[in-house]
């Protein structure tokens, strides 16, 4: 999981690496069927804790990599080498992801363009330049 995420879903990513990663990351997920916890004790059971952490992380990894694949633009720490520009027209959105088994469903919802009070104004986000 770690190796796949680091080599295929690092900050700089392309369609190719993400596609490979989407396939690869499903292998450790499928391996979860055969996972077992050897440490059976009830106190400070790091073996159990790490297994539960893995259960969480592998699902996070799958949703991350699938979401990255579908977002065809660059934004912040999501730097697509094949889509170098930020695309506010299509992607001024939050990604929503549902993971069920091997499948990850990706959808979007727009970013709120107003504040909850009148005390401060809305700052439209803009491209970060240095």
């Amino acid at each position: 999981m770690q190796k796949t995420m680091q080599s295929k879903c690092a900050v700089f990513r392309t369609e190719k690496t993400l596609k490979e990663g989407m396939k690869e990351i499903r292998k450790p997920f499928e391996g979860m069927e055969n996972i077992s916890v050897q440490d059976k004790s009830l106190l400070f059971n790091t073996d159990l804790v790490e297994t539960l952490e893995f259960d969480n992380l592998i699902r996070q990894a799958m949703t991350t990599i699938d979401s990255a694949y579908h977002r065809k633009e660059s934004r912040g720490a999501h730097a697509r080498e094949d889509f170098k520009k930020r695309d506010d027209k299509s992607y001024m959105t939050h990604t929503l992801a549902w993971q069920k088994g091997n499948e990850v469903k990706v959808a979007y919802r727009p970013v709120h363009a107003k504040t909850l009070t009148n005390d401060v104004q809305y700052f439209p986000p803009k491209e970060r330049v240095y």
Partner: protein
Amino acid sequence: MVQFSLPQNSKILKGKYYKDKSGSNNLKKINIYRWDPSKNENPRIDTFEVNMNECGPKVLDILFKIKNEIDPSLTFRRSCAHGVCGSCAMNVDGVNTLSCTKSHSDIRGELNIYPLPHLKVVKDLVGDLNNLYKQYESIEPWLKTKVGEKTTKEIKQSQEDREKLDGYYECILCACCSTACPSYWWNGDKYLGPAVLLQAYRWINDSRDEDKKERLQKVADELKLYRCHTIMNCTNSCPKGLNPAKAIGSIKKMLATS
């Protein structure tokens, strides 16, 4: 004559021997203290043969390797793995240190790993640090000012005053020093120990703090402070290269001259 020995149920027995299965020619024998509170058994020393050809450079890498490949029930604390969090403090080859910064190639022959000495063992290499944290809380490790919440400005500090905290603010509270101190072994319930006293000094010495006098008075106690007999084990063991003994000396000096 009085004879000192461990109670029957604390005697350390010989544990399991895990033979290497990789057939490597570069093996190291690692002896690790094991104790599981859920089993009604004595602590034991397990020996693992580890293939050093495929192992990272630090003692913590060995522990990871054993946990991942040989025995997943091996229990130890770890977090950052590069000497900033202080979780993986343990007794390696007879010296308290952080296993993540200790290189195993420094150690010839068999490698012995124990939990920090003189702590109640929670499990395997995990010691109970509750007492130390309670003592740390007792020195009130936060900035105290007379203006209190009324001020809305930041409290500034000159560069020279800031430099006075060098060598003290770096402490990560790994407890290597306190658990290396014979005085703390005997009077750990009352003596604050080097780690906490170094922190106490860090706040006494902070130019922005306005509670210096009260802080000094609070530690000026025969047991809390003056159980330090300058044995210097603390300074010897500190994995961050700090000098708790000097901090304690400075507190004593401040009290003697104020």
